[in-house]
């Protein structure tokens, strides 16, 4: 019998309204979605004691994916498997489909959620770079109302994010790309399944009629202490022709710009080199 369970309380709610009111309690309950991060800590007695709020009990969050004319909307409970099983993504927003396939394993993809990936704020999150490269934004709901935040502006340090404890990420809005672009998503890890990333690059690139770079997104996972969009290198590339010289400049720039983490999975040196190689591969196409 696991007696440590008595230190935990889990709340079920009948509506989103009830849930955001429950989050006004002190200490603030912690939302739990698919449990693929939180339950690992529970079993190893490292989960902070307290109250958890079961998001799967909230009816408003159950609509998994909504495909509108110009955007796709995920709920707090949209899983990686939901994206894999929806053929829209493989043909229209490939990076989401690719990211969904490299998370953990099938048994993780059926439970793990995109919003949980965002809220857990691991630098190695596999889903977040793809969402960020598509300019996703989040709807955060609390008792006093809701607000929208751009995912690219959401993180500002290791596990530091623009979400108040009383807020639930209720939706993720992802604009459907309106211009044809080259997309690149690559995860480098120890093996294909069940590996935590060493370096991820998600990128989008579109050229105008003069073959100049019109749109560019460069987003790294697992390199910096949080999912990192490199606006400096993007700005260096914008408006330029995609020549070997431009590519070399960008690769040099990213090497100087990144301050990679050094941890059990890899060294800062390796991460910088691989981050540069991936950028080169992406830009050379």
């Amino acid at each position, binding site marked *: 019998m696991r007696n440590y369970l008595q230190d935990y309380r889990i709340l079920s709610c009948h509506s989103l309204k009830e849930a955001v009111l429950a989050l006004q309690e002190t200490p603030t309950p912690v939302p739990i979605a698919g449990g693929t991060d939180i*339950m690992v800590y529970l079993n190893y007695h490292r989960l902070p004691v307290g109250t958890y709020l079961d998001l799967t009990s909230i009816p408003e969050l159950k609509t998994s994916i909504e495909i509108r004319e110009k955007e796709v909307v995920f709920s707090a409970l949209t899983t990686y498997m939901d994206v894999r099983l929806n053929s829209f993504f493989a043909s229209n927003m490939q990076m989401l489909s690719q990211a969904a396939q490299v998370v953990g394993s099938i048994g993780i993809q059926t439970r793990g959620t995109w919003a949980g990936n965002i809220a857990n704020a691991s630098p190695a999150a596999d889903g977040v770079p793809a969402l960020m490269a598509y300019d996703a934004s989040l709807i955060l709901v609390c008792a006093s109302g809701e607000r929208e935040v751009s995912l690219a502006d959401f993180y500002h340090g290791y596990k530091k994010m623009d979400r108040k404890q009383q807020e639930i990420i209720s939706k993720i809005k992802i604009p459907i790309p309106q211009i044809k672009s080259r997309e690149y998503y690559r995860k480098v890890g120890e093996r294909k*399944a069940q590996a935590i990333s060493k370096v991820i690059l998600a990128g989008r690139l579109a050229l105008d009629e003069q073959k100049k770079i019109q749109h560019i997104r460069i987003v790294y996972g697992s390199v910096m202490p949080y999912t990192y969009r490199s606006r400096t290198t993007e700005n260096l590339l914008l408006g330029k022709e995609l020549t070997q010289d431009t590519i070399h400049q960008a690769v040099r720039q990213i090497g100087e710009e990144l301050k990679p983490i050094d941890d059990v999975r890899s060294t800062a040196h390796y991460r910088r080199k691989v981050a540069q190689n991936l950028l080169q591969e992406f830009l050379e196409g």
Partner: protein
Amino acid sequence: MMSELQKQDIQFTINGKKWQGKVHPMKRLLDTIREDIGLKGTKEGCGEGECGACTVLMDGKPVMSCLVPVCQADGHEILTIEGLEEQGKLHPLQESFVKEGGAQCGICTPGMILSAAAYYNDPRIAKDLPESISGNLCRCTGYTKIFSSCHHAMDKKESCCGGKK
């Protein structure tokens, strides 16, 4: 001891039968299956979602039962290795594991078979058979025979049912 107050009424279907009981909502589905329901076929390996030994099917999809708080299984359909046979007849994957020697120590076997069974029933959930069981680790490293057992069952299905659905 845990107070009865902290427990909640939970009910779900397991192997086609309704089950209900009073359990702590944060109790792992794995422990509920083994301790409260008494089905010991579901094994615990790593207890952190890495090895796949505790895989069960929830609404037809594989989940790591060590990572599911039981309150999230409420109202759903669970299938464990004990429920895979139909009317006393082993599932083709089980038959194939027996015939091809797909099990060694046996700890990974129930999870391995259930992951493969999910793919057998719905090939959309993975790109291919190896991916469908890529989250299931075998400490005996008996992969060659595991793969041949799975392939054998899949081939048999394709030859009798005219390929992938």
